[in-house]
């Protein structure tokens, strides 16, 4: 956003008083951070399209094609072939260093590109071909290149290989887009990292190579110099897995050294400014050190972490960024800033702020459903801060504070933070958390650490010390960062459009939007004489939808090692390096699966309306209700208003509807124990939305809560419907507190809007702190806040150019308000502003 001189002439105090936090940030941050922040090409899509100037990168496709052709004469196992393809890409892709930058690395070849790996799927490739806005200039010439890539990869992609492995009827239902989304593969979703192996200062990639080479030598010896045994076949597989790891680890080290070489060339031949020369030499030294060896200082540690993430995003499309930066980088911050004083706090702030910026600029071309479901961002990169050490002591530190302050300086919408709150968090840290919320970032979200540690142990049997290492696997779900606990790939396909459950009660499982019998044909609802029959049908459809989604993901995970291996992710995972098995092999993973429940609360409000108005008060018959729903409420407006106004709504501390919420969740929880992941663990529900409530608006038919086809759905999780929570914030918390946040599901998202004017100053902080105390006492696991006034948001709708930097909490993520659709904007404004 171009700086308005009149605004920038104002004092910081004046801007703070007017809560113009984005201008405050611009005035406070260093010259370097200001340049780098403004240099970001936003990679989140708006209205399903990328921002002007953002183009798809063709390099990976052509370099991949070269590698495939070279391999075609002597085909190799898929993991080795892929490792060679990735190595060829890392060795030959264009790399760049931005002016003023101290950290380097990007998924694409140029700053304005979104990466594209056409070996992933034909559907994605066709979308790109049909997205002229993303084709690089000159368009005609590059469209031909895109066509060449699409033609070359057709039939060779991961999608082409994996779809035949699925039950086709189930796959058709999932791919219809009505009940879930995405193709369940290990190269698309949310990949955790084995941080305890990688980020504890014990090893770099060269050290892992030594471990891998030792395994290769031992296995080679067994296969070639000893009598054949019956496990020789699996030894050959392992040999190939380690060989693939070796190829990719060596390539990653070479890639780091390419940046070192570029930085040295620039320092020696192009740069005249002595300070910048020094910085370039430091970049060179850093990239000569990492990823080959363990970092020695904060810059190396951040660079190492960035490389680890970017290499993973070269191998797969990753929609999340599980991370705990204040925990794993803290030893280096402590050494540099506090003990050795080799850098001061301001220099550290530059590095931390740039680390956020480097993440914010990452973009991979995403399919339509993702672009619509994650408006304004590239993925849900929720970084975890705070929490405890494995022994239970407070892990918050000066770097926690530095990250929170850096976030207010650079004001990126992605990554966002989630803060692991526990009773021992110091007041000075809580104040920094609050300042981020007060500054309208919409983050950090607050997570109840003791409760979520307990939840991890309850659902997945993670041992206490491992459970305490948890990070956000995506928006919400905790996952340890340990050898057997970390989750290599959470496939987004186990994401249920839950409003379909109650819709199918009235359509007998037939989906009228996609014209498909989706779930078993239950009895005609007109014949129901008792509410229990409604609940029975509801359970049939719930079990069927969740079962369909889980089956697909289980299958995707089971065949991943063979069909969609992850040689890089395996190479940086202790369990794979040790065993010679692909990281996705379920036998070496404890399992941490969950079903994401989009559009969940519609079920509860709908069931409450049916129970009250049809069965308890008998104001309407089931026949009348079925007719009204079939007509999308058209011609039944008075009846619709009765179902909206006279039925109790979730979030008002009303036992009538709250008990139904608990009953539904407990029914699901029971089924979650029956469902098994390939590691033998359970599948709990996690109600939350990204912007799926808008994406699904035209997919979900009329519902008994008064909603019509096309209306925005609720904003998700266990958040009350927008404007339907009329009894104040404590009533919302009390309703949510009736849920057992350990036994009834994996986690429960709660959106709340607070008044920025009420929460100004010290009094505002104390009010918020008291609110958090009540939240914790009532046993909730999550809450996140929007603290931007209606006035500002409406002004931003009228004059978006002036409000480019206003950030809002959409659901499990934040976005710049101007980067989300009008429908989503309206949905956020409609949320009740709670006075506390």
């Amino acid at each position: 956003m171009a700086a308005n001189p009149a605004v920038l002439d104002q004092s910081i105090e004046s801007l703070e008083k007017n809560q113009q936090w984005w201008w405050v940030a611009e005035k406070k941050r260093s010259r370097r951070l200001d340049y780098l922040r403004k240099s970001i090409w936003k990679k989140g899509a708006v209205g399903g399209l990328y921002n002007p100037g953002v183009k798809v990168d063709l390099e990976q496709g052509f370099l991949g094609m070269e590698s495939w052709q070279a391999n075609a004469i002597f085909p190799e196992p898929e993991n080795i072939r892929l490792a060679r393809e990735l190595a060829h890409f890392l060795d030959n892709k264009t790399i760049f260093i931005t002016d003023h930058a101290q950290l380097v690395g990007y998924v694409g070849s140029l700053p304005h590109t979104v990466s594209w790996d056409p070996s992933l799927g034909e559907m994605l490739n066709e979308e790109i071909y049909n997205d002229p806005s993303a084709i690089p200039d000159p368009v005609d010439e590059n469209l031909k290149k895109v066509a060449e890539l699409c033609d070359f990869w057709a039939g060779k992609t991961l999608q082409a290989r994996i779809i035949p492995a699925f039950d086709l009827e189930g796959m058709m239902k999932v791919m219809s887009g009505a009940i879930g989304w995405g193709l369940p593969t290990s190269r698309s979703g949310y990949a955790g990292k084995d941080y305890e192996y990688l980020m504890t200062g014990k090893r770099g990639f060269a050290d892992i190579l030594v471990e891998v080479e030792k395994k290769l030598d031992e296995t080679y010896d067994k296969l070639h110099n000893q009598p054949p045994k019956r496990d020789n076949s699996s030894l050959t597989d392992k040999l190939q897995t380690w060989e693939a790891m070796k190829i990719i680890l060596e390539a990653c080290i070479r890639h780091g050294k390419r940046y070192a070489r570029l930085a040295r060339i620039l320092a020696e031949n192009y740069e005249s400014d002595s300070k910048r020369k020094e910085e370039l030499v430091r970049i060179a030294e850093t990239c000569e050190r990492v990823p080959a060896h363990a970092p020695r200082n904060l810059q190396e540690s951040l660079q190492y972490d960035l490389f680890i993430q970017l290499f993973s995003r070269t191998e797969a499309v990753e929609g999340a960024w599980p991370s705990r930066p204040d925990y794993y980088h803290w030893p280096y911050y402590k050494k540099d800033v506090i003990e050795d004083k080799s850098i001061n706090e301001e220099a550290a702030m530059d590095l931390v702020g740039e680390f956020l910026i480097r993440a914010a600029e990452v973009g991979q071309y995403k399919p339509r459903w993702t672009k619509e479901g994650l408006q304004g961002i590239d993925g849900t990169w929720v970084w975890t801060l705070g929490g405890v050490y494995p022994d239970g002591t407070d892990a918050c530190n000066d770097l926690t504070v530095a990250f929170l302050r850096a976030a207010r300086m650079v004001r990126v919408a992605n990554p966002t933070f989630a803060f692991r709150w526990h009773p021992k968090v110091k007041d000075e840290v809580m104040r920094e958390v609050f300042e981020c919320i007060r500054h309208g970032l919409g983050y950090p979200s607050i997570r109840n650490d003791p409760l979520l540690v307990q939840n991890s142990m309850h659902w997945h049997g993670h041992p206490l010390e491992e459970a305490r290492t948890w990070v956000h696997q995506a928006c919400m779900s905790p996952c340890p960062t340990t050898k057997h606990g970390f989750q290599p790939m959470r496939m987004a396909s186990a994401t249920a459009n839950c409003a379909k459950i109650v819709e199918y009660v009235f359509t007998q499982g037939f989906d009228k939007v996609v014209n498909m019998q989706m779930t078993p044909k239950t009895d005609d609802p007109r014949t129901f004489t008792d509410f229990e029959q409604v609940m029975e049908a509801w359970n049939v459809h719930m079990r069927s939808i969740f079962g369909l989604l889980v089956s697909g993901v289980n299958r995707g995970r089971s065949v991943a090692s063979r069909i969609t291996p992850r040689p890089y992710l395996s190479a940086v995972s202790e369990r794979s390096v040790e065993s010679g098995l692909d990281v996705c092999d379920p036998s070496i993973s404890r399992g941490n699966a969950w079903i994401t429940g989009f559009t969940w609360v519609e079920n509860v409000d709908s069931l409450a309306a049916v129970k009250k108005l049809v069965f308890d008060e008998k104001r309407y018959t089931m026949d009348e209700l079925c007719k009204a729903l079939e007509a999308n409420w058209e011609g039944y407006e008075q009846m619709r208003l009765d179902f909206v106004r006279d039925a109790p709504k979730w979030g008002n501390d009303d036992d009538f509807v709250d008990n139904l919420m608990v009953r539904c969740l407990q029914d699901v929880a029971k089924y979650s124990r029956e469902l098994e992941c390939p590691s033998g663990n359970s599948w709990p529900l996690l109600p939350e939305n990204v912007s799926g409530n808008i994406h699904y608006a035209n997919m979900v038919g009329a519902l008994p809560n008064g909603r019509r086809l096309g209306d925005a759905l609720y904003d998700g999780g266990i958040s009350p419907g927008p404007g339907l929570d009329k009894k104040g914030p404590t009533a919302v918390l009390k309703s949510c507190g009736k849920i057992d946040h350990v036994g009834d599901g994996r986690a429960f998202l709660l959106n709340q809007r607070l008044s920025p004017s009420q929460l100004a100053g010290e009094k505002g902080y104390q009010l918020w702190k008291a609110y958090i105390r009540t939240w914790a006492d009532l046993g909730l696991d999550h809450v996140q806040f929007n603290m931007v006034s209606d006035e500002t948001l409406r002004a931003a709708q009228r004059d978006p150019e002036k409000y480019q930097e206003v950030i809002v909490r959409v659901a499990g993520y934040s976005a710049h308000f101007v980067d989300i659709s009008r429908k989503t904007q309206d949905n956020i404004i409609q949320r009740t502003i709670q006075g506390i």
Partner: protein
Amino acid sequence: MAQCKECRNFFSDENQPAFGDCIRKTVDPRQAYFTSKRMEALRDTNDCPDFSNKK
């Protein structure tokens, strides 16, 4: 016929003399940056609009 190794933007790789890096500065609407692209030293530069002879 000029080759990459004759260009002032080309920096030979001592470890792999057959290759080197083509270094270019770009200023786009948001930022300035230097790129490095791996090149063969003997590559024909006929199709390269940025060729700039060292001599």
